[in-house]
């Protein structure tokens, strides 16, 4: 349990390094977690070869959702968008370094859902994207 609030998570929640908005941006996606009302917006800049050069998230949510968003932004900078599309649940769990029950898993995966829905150009973020 204390694991769930590992220092890295509290740290990324309290002092995120990729929180904010990018203007201008090449992509901007936003969606809610309907269960708890958490909201996440992700802005990306992508260079001419399709590599993510800058990534920021904004919104509100619990420590798990905000920390995972920050870690996710950190991890995709420098990666081709095509590679970003392939990220899955396990990648996020590996970043967080914890195991999560079904309820909190939704918190952790919200940012990935939003990111992938945006990367694929979909209207909304569905659970299928992160399975």
């Amino acid at each position, binding site marked *: 349990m204390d694991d769930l*609030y590992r220092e890295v998570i*509290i740290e990324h929640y*309290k002092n995120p390094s990729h929180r904010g908005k990018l203007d201008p941006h090449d992509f901007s996606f936003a969606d809610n977690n309907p269960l708890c*009302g*958490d909201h996440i917006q992700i802005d990306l800049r992508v260079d001419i070869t399709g590599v993510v050069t800058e990534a920021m998230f904004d919104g*509100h949510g*619990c420590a798990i959702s905000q920390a995972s968003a920050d870690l996710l932004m950190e991890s995709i900078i420098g990666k081709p968008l095509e590679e970003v599309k392939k990220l899955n649940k396990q990648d996020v769990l590996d970043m967080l370094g914890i195991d999560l029950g079904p309820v909190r898993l939704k918190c952790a995966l919200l940012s990935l859902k939003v990111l992938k829905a945006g990367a694929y150009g979909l209207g909304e973020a569905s659970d299928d994207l992160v399975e």
Partner: protein
Amino acid sequence: MSSLNVEQIRNDFPILEREARKGVRVIYLDSTATSQKPVQVIEAMNDYYRRSNANIHRGVHTLAEEATILYEGARERIAKFVNAAHSREVIYTRNTTESINLVAYSWARANLKAGDLVILTEMEHHSNLVPWHMLQMERGIELDFIPVTEDGLLDLDAYKTLLDRRPKLVSFTHMSNVLGTINPAGEIIRLAHAAGAITLVDGAQSVPHLSVDVQALDADFYAFSAHKMCGPTGIGILYGKSALLDAMPPFLGGGDMIKEVKLRSFRANSLPHKFEAGTPAIAEAIGFGAAVDYLTAIGMDKIAAHEHEITEYALDQLEEIPGVKLFGPAADKKGGVAAFTLEGVHPHDVAQILDQDGIAVRAGHHCAQPLHEKFGIPATSRASFYLYSTKDEVDLLVKGLYKVKEMFG
């Protein structure tokens, strides 16, 4: 001091003895979501399945007769519990949500047309919003809302102005599941009637905690659920004045709701069966009867007094914690609910860390998203109390919150 013997009451609730994990007792502060069940209710349902299980109303054999008597006997006692004039005015449904939907589907579709106004409030549970949104899309009815003031009360002056628009229906919660506000239901109904409107009261939170008299309130419809008042899930009540219910078309069609069926037609049964199609939740109805027996034996006034004492104590304690912001009115205007935020910590994290110490609170928007938007917050943590809650449990909650603060330092 309340005269409730809480220690003795707690012995009736086996679940309160269990541990969340080894060495950590469950501290159940989520009764507003669903209450725990006393052994008397559990046993009544077990007995029915062990001794009397049969389908009701049609059979002539011993078991069918016994089951029917138990099922209808429960209805009589539930009717008496809310002082309905007659048990035929008490319809079994699945829960409060279904009761409200029954009114929306049957009464409203027979009586409302495009442009007709329905007044709700800003503190409604989704169950008293969405059925009307659906009707708005289907019928083009209009919706307007009694505003909630900063201190969590309904703005009755604004309500009086809304009534000038001659609404057809005023549908509101008797007690907010987030703010705990106990609304002046009698006055709201009196004003609605003076303006020519019918009234529907969401009593999901009030019937478990207050002594409710539907005749004294003069409510036209009144909805509540068993599971929040020591009874089982899957059973609720729609109370309605018989003149209204008699004039309404049936809701669901099928067995038991008919007097006569031909290949191409049917005649509806009389009340209350007209609205009870199919084999109902028989064991649950019997359990509901046992729950009202249980609450009646203890006394609703005593239960309300105990909850008030605990709530006042909890609000005082919570207010002392730096960073805690409470929502809703002062203890004298509310039931046993304390919704709060803790600065810098999301309610989900609060709930999760409290759970570490076995403390069960709710986190989220509690099915009242518009109300949270009104207060400019995505979510709250909510502790709620019932007849078995103790001051010791409040102390543990407070201690737990200090631990949360420390963690997020």
